[in-house]
Each structure stands twice: as structure tokens, then as C-alpha cells.
């Protein structure tokens, strides 16, 4: 219990790199082929233990979207964003889902991901599939 309410997940869990707070399950990953500033990112249906930033418009490679950044509830580090709405019809499938940056989380086996130097990529979410 305690004041900060932290949910715990069972199974293959992705957790915060800094404080090990649980975020999401492997089975909730829809796609592993997204990209962000630091490299790989996953599209996930459900994420726990995050707080939300302000909704804002952001231009991605795939078009204009409205997104809200998500932060770890315990240590406050930014770990990705949530798609609130997409302007293009072909991008609507992302609405309500989350992006988790692989660089910010530990995999189910506790592994980290080195990421890609910032220079080359603008914030993007191009889906290669």
C-alpha cells in the first residue's frame, strides 16, 4: 500500500530502467517496429504506473497526431507517449495505445538497450511493417 499507488504485473514485464517500476507486459505489445529519438520503440495496448503530460499536437513521419507524454509514476522520467488521436484515417488504429521507448525500459529478462545517438532521427514513429 503506501501513498504512491504502484500496480504490479505478472509475467514478462517491461519495467523502468531507473526504478524498476512495472509498465507493461510482453503480450500487450502490438508492434516492435516503431522508432523514436532514442531508437526502437514499441506500440503497446496497455500501460500501468504512468502519469500523463499535456495533450499536444505533434507532427510525425506518418502525419499529425495529438499525443500526451507519459512519465514513470515513481521517478518521473519520461518513458514514451500516448496517442490520443490521429488525423489520418490510416493512423487511427494507434488511438488509445501507447509508445514505450525501448531505451527507457528494462526488458523481461532485465536487459537494457543502448539506443541510437540522437543526431539522425527526428521524433518519429514510422511503422516499417
Amino acid at each position, binding site marked *: 500500500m503506501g*501513498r504512491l499507488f504502484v500496480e504490479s504485473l505478472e509475467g514478462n514485464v517491461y519495467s523502468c530502467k531507473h526504478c524498476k517500476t512495472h509498465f507493461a507486459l510482453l503480450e500487450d505489445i502490438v508492434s516492435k517496429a516503431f522508432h523514436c529519438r532514442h531508437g526502437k520503440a514499441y506500440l503497446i495496448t496497455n500501460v500501468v504506473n504512468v502519469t*500523463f503530460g499535456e495533450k499536444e499536437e505533434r507532427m510525425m513521419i506518418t502525419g499529425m497526431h495529438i499525443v500526451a507524454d507519459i512519465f514513470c*509514476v515513481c521517478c518521473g522520467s519520461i518513458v514514451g507517449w500516448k496517442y490520443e488521436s490521429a488525423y489520418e484515417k490510416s493512423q487511427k488504429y494507434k488511438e488509445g495505445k501507447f509508445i514505450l521507448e525501448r531505451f527507457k525500459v528494462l526488458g523481461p529478462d532485465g536487459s537494457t538497450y543502448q539506443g541510437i545517438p540522437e543526431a539522425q532521427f527526428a521524433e518519429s514513429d514510422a511503422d516499417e511493417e
Partner: protein
Amino acid sequence: MIHVLMENLSTDLDQKGLIKKHEFIRVIIQCLYSLGYEESAACLESEANVSYKSAELKLLESQILGANWDDCLDTLYGIKDLTDEVRASAVFLVFKQCLLEILSRGDDSMALSLLRKQISSLNLGKEKVHKLAFGMLSGKKMEKVEDHVICELRKRLLTKLEEVLPPPIALPERRLERLVEMAVSAQIDSCMYHSSIDAVTICEDHQCGRDQIPTETYQILTDHKNEVWFVQFSNNGQYLASSSSDCSAILWAVMDDGELRLKHTLQSHQNPVSFVAWSPDDTMLLTCGNAEVLKMWDVETGTCKHTFGDQGFIVSSCSWFPDSKRLVCGSCDPEKGIYMWDTDGNEIKAWRGMRMPKVLDLAVTPDGESLITIFSEKEIRVLNLVTNDERVISEEHAITSLSVSGDSKFLLVNLNSQEIHMWDIAGTWAKPLKYKGHMQNKYVIRSCFGGFNSNFIASGSEDSHVYIWNRRSSDPLEILVGHSMTVNCVSWNPKRPNLLASASDDQTIRIWGPCSSDNRKP
């Protein structure tokens, strides 16, 4: 056929046309009769030219009192709009009386033929007929019944017929009183602030003002040195216990005028204290924390009586049994499980093992019948301690806290999807009652029942306000502003319905009372 007398009086009483004048007067006449004012009733009947008894009833009356049984039965059969059932009951009643009178005259053979022909054809069910026949044949020769007794019995028959026959032939008894009661009940039901114990006056529409609900800060307690996570009034309403992330708990005494004074500071924990529980007899207090052990304190002296378990025994929540001798506690880490102890420190029972899910919160209902546990965030388990039956309510979102109503009938859970759900402990509801409007995303926020008749629900909120709902409505009734940071917990004084305490991250406890300035005594 019915209202020959009343045709020219069927003007409506009110503008909406809801009430017919002659019916209204008829109901008033009935009321006067039932209050014993027979002269006034008769006077009204003649003055308004409205008869209390319907034409059919008057006819039946004269037929019964005059023992014209055949005519009486004709009348009964002649009334339209009677269901077969009702008609059969009415006819049966008449037959019973008729049979009684025949028997008392000694005319057995006639009685028998009546029984055979008429009554059995009524289709009333064998039992009634058999009973009647048995009564007839069972005995001693029936003595002649006195005349005045027969008269009495006939009057009683008429009363019974009045109960059986439907309106408008006969009015249900106490009709006017019943209509007024319905109106008053409806007003009380729609009174959102309802807080008065006194009977409601019918001289004006009932509406409680918000001056009965705690809405203003009366006192700010600043003795804690860090975030205050929990507050609870004692069962007798005379004390308040609070606990904080400064690793202490404080006991306060409630003075007669509603002011709170510090009584004891309980210091012995090494980690933040997030939960306290009063023993039902208010002599002892349990304290525990999400990373802390369970300690028991004496309320009067403020000394620690016992520490349960060993060093690593983490207890997240605890609850007493009504005998104030046994307690139960739940652990979320590392040895998951539920343990039952007595006040001497002996372990009575334990539910533990690898399969035990995390226990987030638990409570024993004040009547000692059920143990309610919150498991692994989304499950509410209600265990009946008497029958050992278990029931699970699954929520869709994570539950952060649990509280139980004082009458042991309802439970309240705060979900981190910003909703508070109320369920009934007996398990008859398919869906919960929901309350919204407050803010809750990251923290454990607690809510409670309270106020007059436990009609209200109060909760903390992450936007630093205290929220109050009337149980009947899912939108907040009042929002209390004052704290500067998240309000973690609230407690409503069980003996003083307009005294409320709230605990906040701003390190203070606020005491709230009613708003009218000369009502300083909450």
C-alpha cells in the same frame, strides 16, 4: 351505476386536473371517521353532498344487516370490474356468515346443502372448503348465538368486505394519511443535504440546508512533521488518530465544543505509518505501514503494548474483530498472507503460502460476520466468517483502498480510474453505485461513509480538495477547499455527523464543520 349522487360534483380540485374534488372530499371523510370524529364526518357528508360509502357498499350494508343473503349475493355477482378472485373471496365471506347463522339456528340440513351446492362451486380451493366443513361437523352442537353477537358479526363482515373490495367501491384504509406520508417521503428522498433526525413538518416543503454538512475549516492541526497519510475518528467519536510519513502516529482528544487537542504522540516506528485501526472498544490502536511492522498501543497511556511478528514482518493493513480481542492483518510483502492474532500476541490463524496474492487492504465488518480483502489490485473478496462462503467481485481498474459502512452492509473502494464504487456486502447487486468528480491517478486515496445516517460519502483527492457526495447521486454535493496538496484520507466522526477530518500531503490535518457562524459546536 356508481356515481349517481356525485356526477354534478366531478369538477377538479386543482389546476392541473390531477385531483377530483369528490374523491378528495371522500378521502377526508374517511380520515375523519378513522380519527373518531363521526359527527364531523357525517356533517361533511351532508354539507358536501358526498357519500363516504359507495352506493354498492350501502346496498350491501343494508342487505347484510338485514340478512338478505340472496340479494346480497346478487349484488356481489352484479358488480362489474371485479376479478374472479376478489369476487370469490367476497362471496366466501358472506357464505361463512350465512352458514354460521344457519348453524346457530340448528338447521343442519340446510347448512349441509349450502355447503355442497354453493360453496364448492366457488372454486376457492379445497382447503378452505374442507376447513369450513370440518368446523361444521366437528363438534358439539352449536349453541344458539345471541342476537347482538350476530349483529356484531354482521358488522365485522361488512368491514372485511370493505377490505376485500377494490376502490372505488371501497377505499383502502387510512388513504389520506398514506398519501401525505408518500409526499413527505418523496421530499425527504430528494433532500440532498438531509441531516435532521426530527420528524419533518408538513407545514412547509422539506429541504435541509447545507448548513448541516461540514463545509468550513474550523481547525488546522500542524503537529505532524511530514505528509499525513491517514486519519480516523474512534468509534465513540471522542478521539482522532492520525499517522504520517514522519514515522509517527498522533492521538487527539475531541473536546465538547469540537476542538481537538493533542493527547499522545506514538513514536516507535522506523518507517512511515500509513494505516491505523481503532479497537471496537476504543481502548487500543493498531498502527502499521507499507514497509512497517504492526504495533499495538494503549490509548489511555500512549505506550506501545506489543509488536507483532518479527523484524521483517510487513503489514499493510489491519482490522479488529468486534470482541476487541482478536485482530487480523494483511501483508503485501515479503511473506504474503493474512494473519489472525489475539491481543496477547498469539497467532490464531494464518492464510499464507505461495499462491496467496498480494493483500492491498482488508477489513472486518463491524458485526464480525465478513472479512473483506482486496487482492492483487483488482479483486474484492468477501469471506463470510460464519459459513465460510467466499465471493469475489472483480473490478476493471486497480483498487487503492477499502472502507466499510458502520451498519456492515456496504463497502466502498477507491479505484485509480478516478471512480469510487459502492457494493453491497450481501452480494445482491449486479452493478456498483459509482461516484465521480474527484481526482485520483497516482496515489492511494481513501474515502469513507459518514454524516447523518451514513447518507454521505467523503473522499480525498489529488487536487487538494475534499469531496462529499450524497449516496444517492454520483456527482459531488460539496467540494471543500483548503488544503494545498493532495488530500490522502478523510474520516467522518461517527457520533457527530457534522464533524469531518482530512489528512493531506501539506503536513496538516483539517477539521471541518458546518458553515453557519453561530453553529460553532459541530
